[in-house]
């Protein structure tokens, strides 16, 4: 499994391959619900655990990430947006698109500025769409990471306004 992520220096704009990289280091450790949380370091815990133990989790040293199931009601995202540094949204299959809307809500409705990570059955052909709704990093389930990176350049024009582009094409470009 490879991790692709937005470069720290990249501007928030419609995705281009140059804005992303294959990560060789990743400080985040995903903690299962029955495992104990280490005292330091960056950890990702489940939403259930976050809700049960949020005080302790926020008091520890190291940054906090939360795994959010894709059928989570959007209202439950509000507290996360202010306390988590990373939110991981899961794709049980790549045909299940609920996490796209959760990402939009996180960005536009709850103003989340941290990292949104796509996990689960993530494939190359959906990366650009994921980036456009607000994802920054992608755990690629399989396939070549280099080719996946190149796929951000498949399309160089987009009609819609999305999380990374507040204006639709017709407000950005002179059109006939």
């Amino acid at each position, binding site marked *: 499994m490879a991790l692709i992520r937005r470069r720290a220096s990249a501007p928030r704009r419609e995705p281009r391959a140059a804005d992303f990289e294959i990560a060789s280091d990743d400080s985040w450790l995903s903690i299962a619900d029955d495992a104990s949380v280490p005292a330091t370091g960056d950890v990702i815990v489940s939403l259930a655990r976050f809700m049960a133990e949020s005080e302790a989790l926020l008091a520890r040293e190291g940054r906090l990430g939360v795994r959010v199931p894709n059928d989570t009601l*959007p209202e439950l995202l509000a507290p996360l947006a202010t306390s988590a540094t990373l939110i991981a949204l899961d794709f049980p299959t*790549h*045909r*299940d*698109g*609920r996490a*796209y*809307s*959760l990402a*939009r809500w996180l960005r*536009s*409705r709850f103003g989340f500025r941290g990292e949104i990570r796509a996990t689960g059955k993530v*494939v190359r*052909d*959906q990366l*650009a*769409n*994921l980036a*456009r*709704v607000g994802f920054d990093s992608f755990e690629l389930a399989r396939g070549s990471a280099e080719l996946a990176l190149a796929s951000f350049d*498949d*399309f*160089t*024009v*987009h*009609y*819609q*306004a*999305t999380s990374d*582009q*507040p*204006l*639709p*094409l*017709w*407000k950005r*470009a002179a*059109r*006939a």
Partner: protein
Amino acid sequence: MYRYDEHDRRIVVERARQFRTQVARRISGELTEEEFRPLRLQNGLYIQLHAYMLRIAIPYGLLSATQIRKLADITRKYDRGYGHFTTRQNLQLNWPRLEDVPTILDELASVEMHAIQTSGNCVRNVTSDPFAGVARDEDVDPRPYCEILRQYSTFHPEFATLPRKFKIAVTGSKNDRAAIAVHDIGLRVLKNDAGEIGFEVYVGGGQGRTPMIAPRIRAFLPERDLLAYTEAILRIYNQLGRRDNLYKARIKILVHETGVPEFTRLVEEEFARIASDEGLVLTPDEIARVTRHFEPASYETTPATPTLEGLTLGKDRTLARFVEANVLPHRVAGYAIVQISLKSERLPPGDVTHVQLDAVADLADRFSFGRAVVTHRQNLVLTDVKIAALAALHADLAKHDLATPNVGRVTDIVACPGLDYCDLANARSIPVAADVASRLRTLEQEQDLGPITLNISGCINACGHHHVGNLGILGIDKLGEEFYQLTLGGDHTETAAVGKILGRAFAADEIAGAVEKTVRTYLALRTSRDETFLAVYRRVGPTPFKEAVYGAHPASSQRTAA
């Protein structure tokens, strides 16, 4: 009509290029069929019983002569010389080879066409009134809004993997010719008392195994809010639509299970949050920009313009019948709307040969400002024909078997491809259409049967829209044999209704007879020529039809277990 600018062009070119690499990955074996499937489905490429099928998008059914010629050429070069128009105003190729599909997409891109989102669980081709822009009863031309929605939904990143497919239809008339009541979103664009343009919004209609007539959730949505409201509906559906059961995944089930008031509340709440987003509010400038593409043709009017009523047809009964059945009044004096039936005796409903396509392109150039429209009843329309030129046009249409005078009549049958092509089918549709048509053709010529719609689907997916045919035929499977259910009373217009099953199903050799009995019963019951089949059915109900079709004691006439 809408002409692409550099941005639109770049998108279809880049799409063709992307699909070429996806096909190459499939052919090299890098992608398994299972992995390739969702990719090809986002691009209208299905696998049918015998071959691939490519569905080409025809946004709101509108084609230029250049595009029609290109389609003719594509069917000649890469297929078997014919295509099939669908009930969603698209064109299907039944025999393309996988390795040719990227080149077909390049060819389509060269005439501002594509196959984007003609399948898959995304927003599909937006459909509309085939008479948009020329109908006398039109309040507002719906096509600019269709085009705005087309661009908004094309590769919308958030809505590429909805629970299920999503179909939007827009009409601009009270008389609904776009069947908006049976779409996921149905829009009627109109002007309010203050002269402002806006939409009635219907959500959650559909066909398939659970046919539903869409409830109206907004009486007047100002035009500037079109995208925000659409986005709110799509987002609520994407989040809450069922994904546990394929048959319950359409938005109609969500609306039904949530209840209309609660569903409406959720949508309105989301809409309120995003309604003022700069990315969604439609500006008068943008609406005007797109509307300019649909400006009326440069009609010629002379003092002595003939009218349809005043047309002297002389002794030409063939032309008279054609005019009566296929020609409609136009909003501009001296012009008429001419419908071309694709329901002749020779081809399956909606099928068209490359020679016919070329002929239509030429006739569109000569007689109708180089445009033609596909209807959701699988016919074509030349929207702007001079009344003075009708006879000449008719003569040329007749040379190509395109002058069948039956539009809106019972032999103008809508049928899906059925078991001859489709791997989901329970039964054949095309031979049943041929049987029914050949039984009723003479009757139709002898007696004016008035408007009757007859729709055939080869399975409960209802691609032939049988639920909303005045007569509907549904292919079902009974212990491995093809059977057909007959429904009566369906209606796709502004008085929309879902047809009701008349009784037990019929074997393949019985169904045409049952249809004929139904039609003869109507003839016997109508009080005048003006009382349509639907009016009679609504007046008398199913009983007289049941008695005629099954006999007075239905149980004793059973031939096979129902």
